[in-house]
């Protein structure tokens, strides 16, 4: 088991209600500053740096989203239900937490949440498969003939997240290959799904499939927003939708 270290966080607002904000890949706690500021009057907002991001140390190399959720559960030791808001990668952790530790979760809100494999065209699949083979060949060639094709391959075809991942590369790869459909099915808490219509990283289609999988869920598309500006330009619209959702949760 991992050592029990405290995650770095910023806390704002006060009150009994607890909002836990989990940022996306490549972000840190600051990514939520603008939107979380809109919830200061409503309760205590904890903006975490996920392990390996910002000022929180890494989990063991290659840790997957489930291990992130286990580590998060240790942070939330008070056993009272929290509202978990996750963006992109943070949404994966929120899904894991909600299914593994239902007693700690009152509701989850996934903003541009990832976790389900994208529907891809045949052309895309062929291209992806060819590239995978090419990457393997490069690696074999490097080990046999001391070439540096693998580096060239990454420079040419690797995503910016992959290139910048550093020691978190294993974690990133496990996330990209993961399918949370089964996990999502076990979620019992109310779930809000917010997706921007212009999101190319986690298109609204993913949110619609989450809606099918999660028993009590509400899916809303925000017109004109993408994967990132949904947190900034879209902050007020998210605020409105989250608040009316939480009000309905209270009234149920």
């Amino acid at each position, binding site marked *: 088991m991992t050592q029990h270290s405290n995650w770095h966080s910023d806390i704002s607002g006060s009150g009994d209600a607890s909002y836990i904000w989990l940022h996306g890949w490549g972000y840190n706690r600051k990514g939520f500053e603008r939107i979380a500021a*809109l919830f200061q009057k409503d309760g205590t907002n904890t903006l975490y740096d996920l392990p390996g991001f910002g000022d929180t140390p890494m989990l063991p190399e290659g840790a997957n989203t489930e291990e992130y959720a286990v580590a998060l559960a240790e942070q939330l030791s008070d056993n009272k239900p929290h509202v978990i808001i996750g963006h992109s990668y943070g949404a994966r952790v929120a899904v894991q937490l909600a299914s593994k530790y239902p007693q700690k979760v009152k509701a989850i809100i996934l903003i541009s949440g990832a976790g389900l494999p994208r529907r891809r065209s045949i052309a895309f699949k062929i291209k992806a498969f060819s590239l995978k083979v090419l990457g393997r060949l490069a690696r074999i060639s490097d080990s046999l003939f001391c070439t540096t094709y693998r580096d060239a391959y990454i420079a040419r075809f690797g995503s910016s997240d992959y290139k910048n991942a550093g020691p978190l590369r294993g974690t990133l790869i496990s996330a990209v290959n993961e399918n949370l459909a089964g996990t999502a099915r076990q979620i019992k808490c109310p779930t809000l799904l917010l997706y921007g219509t212009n999101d190319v990283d986690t298109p609204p289609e993913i949110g619609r499939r989450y809606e099918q999988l999660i028993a009590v869920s509400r899916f809303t598309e*925000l017109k004109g927003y993408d994967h990132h500006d949904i947190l900034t*330009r879209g*902050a*007020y*619209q998210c605020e*409105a*939708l989250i608040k009316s959702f939480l009000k309905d949760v209270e009234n149920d």
Partner: protein
Amino acid sequence: MAKKKVIAVVFGGRSVEHDVSVLTGLQFLEALDPGKYEGLPVYIDPLGQWWTGDALANRKQYPIDTSANKNLTQLTLDLATPANGQPRFFAFQKGLMGEKRTEITFDLIVPAIHGSNGEDGTLQGLLEFASIPFSGCRPLGAAATMDKVFTKRNVRTSGINVLPELVLSRPPQGTFLNPETIEANLKATFDGDPYPLIVKPCNLGSSVGVGKADNMDSLIAALMAAFRLDYEVIIEPFVTNLTEYNVAVRRDADGGIVSSAIERPLRNAELLDFKNKYLAGGIPGGPKLDTGPSEGMASLNRTLNPDELSNEQEHFIRSSAETVFDMLSLAGSVRVDFLANSETGEVWLNEVNTIPGSFAYFLWEAAAKPLSFLALTETIISEGFELSARRLGATDTKSGGATIFA
């Protein structure tokens, strides 16, 4: 669930403050509650043509070449409201069978245009004439506050401290500014040595065309620059050790008038001109429109709730802003700007903006009783519906007993 109200936010416009207005309009659209309202962006290009389209929501699109952009639809506002009372735009689309007219209905217009042809009562008058509900000030308040001299003369009557002013009209075509006449006018208006002076166009906000004069030569130069923008120009003494304070005012749900946090804009240059005001910290000539959350007036560096203000000063600022709001029957989120001499502590009311940049939401979010932009758009919209309904209700001929054709 009730049908969502369509809120048409009109921005851009034939005004020197066109670009800032684009930001204000988009910010308002982004702060609409998606559960209750559907935003309809309506862009008025610098030629005065009206457009709509999803592409308008993206800041990167600006400046937009409206005539070449295939994603935009040109609109005309229907001034002859149909019998069902539902206001509408007409859109024209070219098809195989010639031009096809389609109808885009909406419920309320939010004017988000700064300066002339939008903040000055002209658009408001047009909308009242057409019985189209709209938000913010009615024509009277909008027109009254756009004229800086009219505003000052009015507030002076209620004992609010304002600077003395000299108003000059643009000299007739073919003639020049006469230094001797100006000299005599200055003597009659200001005590002692009048310089330094500040020159500004009478009917513009946003510090566009504002210049400082240290002697007659620079005064003439500043006047010429200002006359290019406006027919009337106002000359005031330059306040030394100048500090500015702004406060926003609105009417709350109970009908009382409330004021926001006070801000002191930060700046390096001696004079706050357009570039300093909106591009603070930016590179001159650099891109004005970014995609970030803080932009336009919202990104202007400022100190909120500055602690150097004495109780009397704060009271003066708040009470005179509230008095102006009441006196001129204003509505919406109105920003009132003050000048102060930080040495002597004297404060003067400077001007009133009925459609301030970003609707001054950042002042409301920092108010003693904070109000999120989301809640602000809600109050602006519901007030707009209420004010328009109040007027529309009184236009029935029968209610006034003025029926002739019974």
